[in-house]
Every structure is written in C-alpha cells, then in structure tokens.
C-alpha cells in the first residue's frame, strides 16, 4: 500500500506535481496515466525518496521510505532501464544490490532466470538492447521479492513478445496479492493491464477510479450513418427529433438512438445508406479529452482532440474491442 498525501514538487518556479493525494492498493495493477511531462516520473522518484517533495508525504505501509529496513525487500522499482553502469555484468549489478539489502546470492540467479537473461548473465550490460536492459531492470525490481512494485513505462522499447510477457508478469504479481503501480502515457496499454486508474495532467489529479468505472463514465456509444443523400437524411432525422452531428466526409454521428431503429427509419423513407454502424468512442479519446487542457507540449496546428478524432476513422477494430473482450 502506498499513500500519497498532498504531494507537491516545485522545480524552481515550475510546478511539476500539484498536491497529489491518492492511495495505491494491494492485489491489483494500478495504472498511472498521464501525458508526457505530467509529472509521473517525478511522483515515482518522490515515492522512492530520490527527489525531495516540496510539500506533502509518501507513506509505504505507513512508513517513510527511509524508515524501511532493507527497502528492496519492501518495494522494487524499475525507473530507468538504462540506469546501470554499462561496464558491470548483469550478475554483478544484481549482486551489489542484493548485498546492500542482505538478500541471499542465490536470488540473483533466480531473478535472472525469471526475466530470461541467464545466458547473458556475465556479459557487460553496455551491449544490452533496450529490451534486455528493461528485463535487467525488472530483475532488479524483483530481487528482494517485494510486496510493492513500481514500473515506470515498462513496455517502452520492448518487442511484442516482451510486451506480452510484461503484461502477464504484472497481472501475476498482482494476483499474488502484491501492489503493482505502473505508469504509462498510453491508455491502450493500461486498458489491457490495469484494474484501477490514476490519471494526472500537469501534476494534478484528474481521475482516481476503477477501470470499469472509467470505461462506464467515459466511453460514449453512438451510431455512425453515411448516405449519398446527406441533406435528406438530416431532414428525416430532424423531423423525428433525432439530433445528428455531421463529422467531415459526409458521415453523421447520432447519440442515444439504437442502430436498428435508425435503419428502420431510413428504410421507411427509402434512403440509401452506405454505412450504419454502432460505434464506441475509444478510451484513448476519453483520456485525451480528460487531459487535453493539461497537455504540456501541444503540437501547434489544430485542436488535439479534433485532430485525433479525425484519424480515429476505422475505430471498431481498435483496442476498444479489446477491452470489451476483456470485460466480458
């Protein structure tokens, strides 16, 4: 269990983390979501007492990080995969960490085996690919068999097989009753692994709720219609008192009326339809909407949300389908 209370961090005059208060609970994967520069890494560094908070506190099972006996046996963290001395072999890197926390030497071989690096254990980590470094960082996090695990953007730089592996690893760790806290800037990644979501933007808490709640609140369902006679279709809908929104390329989006009803309506008026499809706005869109105002580095042309929605054309096969599967 990790408890943050009013956690605040200024770098000079810049406010990086703004009075964050939330709790990370055991037995599930908690996703820590936010755009780049939202303060995720700073928050995680403060959890490990690496950066000093300007205000507020972090408690790990009720204690300050510095009060933990052999902290690696309480909380394991992967912050930056490249944060190892490149001239040291994987086994020596893990050995010096193990020794500092009184962890038996055999454990080094075990975690190397878990992450699949046994064959390169004696190689200097300088030559490791990003994926291998990521695995070494995860081995270091698992070294003390900790109850709490922090992963900062763990899938960055991993190949699909590695991504799959880490998703399963996180779920398994949570299933064993551990606290797993994972940051990401990709909603799609979180939708696959996290049961609980903490969303921040510009250092402020935007949402702290279960994934199911987030989906319920934020995923809008609507029907998309496209006809070669858009004007007549609009008139017909208008007469029925149905509100439709025109979205570029001649499509209409209709909220709150089921697709079969709309199809029947079109048939009664002998309207040709080229498309009639129920849609679900992606969680990625919901996340974008939530954090749109807080994104620190905007691209300059166009509204980010509108631009995104435009590129989101063939939505149904996206990851939105994935969480539906997962939910069922």
């Amino acid at each position, binding site marked *: 269990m990790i408890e943050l209370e009013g956690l605040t961090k200024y770098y000079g005059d810049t406010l990086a983390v703004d009075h964050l208060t939330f709790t990370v609970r055991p037995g599930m994967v908690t996703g820590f979501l936010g755009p780049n520069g939202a303060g995720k890494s700073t928050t995680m*560094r403060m959890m*490990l*007492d*690496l*950066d*000093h908070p300007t205000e507020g506190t972090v408690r790990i099972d009720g204690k300050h*990080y*510095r009060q*933990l*006996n*052999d*902290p*690696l046996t309480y909380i394991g*963290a992967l*912050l*930056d995969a*490249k*944060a*190892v*001395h*490149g*001239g*040291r*072999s994987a086994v*020596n890197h893990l*050995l*010096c*960490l193990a*020794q*500092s*926390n*009184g962890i038996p030497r055999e454990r080094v071989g075990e975690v190397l085996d878990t992450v699949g690096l046994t064959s390169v254990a004696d190689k200097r980590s300088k030559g490791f690919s990003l994926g291998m470094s990521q695995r070494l960082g995860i081995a*270091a996090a698992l070294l003390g068999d900790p109850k709490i695990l922090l992963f900062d953007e763990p899938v960055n730089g991993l190949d699909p097989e590695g991504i799959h592996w880490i998703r399963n690893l996180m779920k398994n760790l949570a299933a064993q009753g551990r606290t797993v806290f994972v940051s990401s800037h990709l909603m799609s990644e979180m939708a696959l692994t996290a049961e609980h979501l903490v969303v921040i933007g510009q250092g402020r808490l935007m949402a702290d709720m279960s994934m199911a709640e987030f989906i319920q609140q934020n995923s809008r369902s609507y029907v998309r219609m496209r006809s070669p006679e858009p004007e007549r279709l609009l008139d017909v809908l208008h007469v029925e008192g149905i509100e439709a929104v025109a979205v570029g390329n001649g499509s209409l989006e209709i909220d709150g009326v089921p697709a079969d009803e709309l199809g029947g309506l079109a048939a009664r008026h002998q309207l040709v339809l080229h498309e009639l499809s129920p849609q679900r706005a992606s969680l990625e869109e919901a996340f974008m909407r939530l954090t749109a105002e807080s994104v620190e580095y905007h691209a300059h042309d166009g509204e980010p949300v509108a631009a995104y929605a435009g590129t989101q054309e063939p939505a149904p096969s996206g990851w939105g389908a994935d969480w539906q599967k997962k939910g069922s």
Partner: protein
Amino acid sequence: MAEVPRVLRSEWTKIKSVRSTMWTLGTAVLVTIALGMLICTLVRVDFGSKSINQQITFDPTNVSFTGMTLGQLAMIVFGVLVVANEYSSGMIRTSLAAVPQRATFLFCKLLVATALVLVVGLVTSFAAFFAGQAVLGEHRAYLSDPGVLRAVIGGGLYMTLIALFSMAVASMLRSAMLSLGVLMPFFFLISSILGNVSATRKLGRYLPDQAGQKIMQVIAPVNDPVPYGPWGGLAIMMGWTAVALAGGFLVLKKRDA
C-alpha cells in the same frame, strides 16, 4: 536502516566489477615506479656535474617519488570515476533506492575506495622507493636512515589523500568530465605554477598537493623555509580533503538524485 557491513560489501562488489578500477590503479602504480626509475637514472648519470651545494642537499628518497607527479593523475581519475560513474550512468538512483540513508551510502563507498587506494598507494610507494634506490646505486638512501621510512609511508598516504580528495570533489560536482576538467589542470599545472613563481609561492604552499608532498621530503631544500613540517603538511592536505568531503556530503543530502 541500512546496515554498514552490507553496504560495504556491496560497494566492494561494485568497485571490483568494473574494469576502470584495474586500469586506473594499474596505471598509477606503473607510471609512478617507471618514471621514478627513469628520473633516478638521469640523476645518477648527471650527479658529478652538480654543484657541491646541490650534492649536499640531494634527497635520494624524494627523487625516487618524482614519478608521482604523473602517477597521481591516474589516482585522480580513479577517485573521480568511483563516484561520478554513479551519476553519469544513472546508477545513483538504483543505489539510493537500495540504500536511502545517503550518509551511509556515501561514506561506505568512500571508505571502500580509500582502503583500496591506501593498499595500492603503500605498495607503490615502497616499490618506487626500492626501485629508485637500486638505480641510484652509491647515492642511495636506506629505509633505516632517519626520516626515510616516514617519507615512504607518507608517499602512500599522499596518494590516498589525492584519490579521496578527488572522490569528494566528484561528489560535489556529480560529473566525471567536470571533475577531471577541474582537478587535472589544477594538480598538473596551476598548483606547480603557483608554487614555483616567487610572488605566489607563499600561497601555493598551502594547496593540498604542495602541502602534502612535504611528507615525502627527507632533506629540506635550501633557501625555501616552509612554515610547517612533514606531518603539518599532511594535516593541511587532510583539512582540504575534509572540507571537500563535507561539501560532497551536503550536495548528496540536499539535492534530488
């Protein structure tokens, strides 16, 4: 609380598992001994042409340590790398997550590195002395001569303090490039310039290396009265090192990793 013996063992694993340790310390040993022997050879060949005065104040012990002016640079590199490698690689975050008591972390690291340097420094100093004296032949000094043993042990202490001072500076500056950029020209050029120009000599005497080197002299040079003895000089050098260590600790304690 992190336990000191565990952190010491961990730091020992760190230090012996990187190649730079072997390279820098090996270079320091070889350069100090080899250059000392070369200078001793030149001095011996040239001895007859020196004035009577120069012959009387000839200090065979000190001459065999001449190689240290170059050898100490490798010691500086060792000291800087031991500390600054943590920062340049980002390893410092992993290390401090494992040992959040920053004083324990820093002083265990420095203790292990200093102990290693002390052993290497003493071996180097004795080896440089015996090799140099063997070359000097009839002009040689003996370990049993007054002040010689003190000078030879002092040579090892001097190398140790140079390395420790470098570690402390690197903890303050947190960058290998920056630390070497400050320490190298300082010890190789600035200090000897300040010490050899008469206007600044009085000041230069109190610089860490100039004061520390006094312990390696057995026969004081003429016309150069120094206001401190061999141990006094070493104490001045220790003072500098202590101040640098305090600075390095404060930086580590106050700043975000």
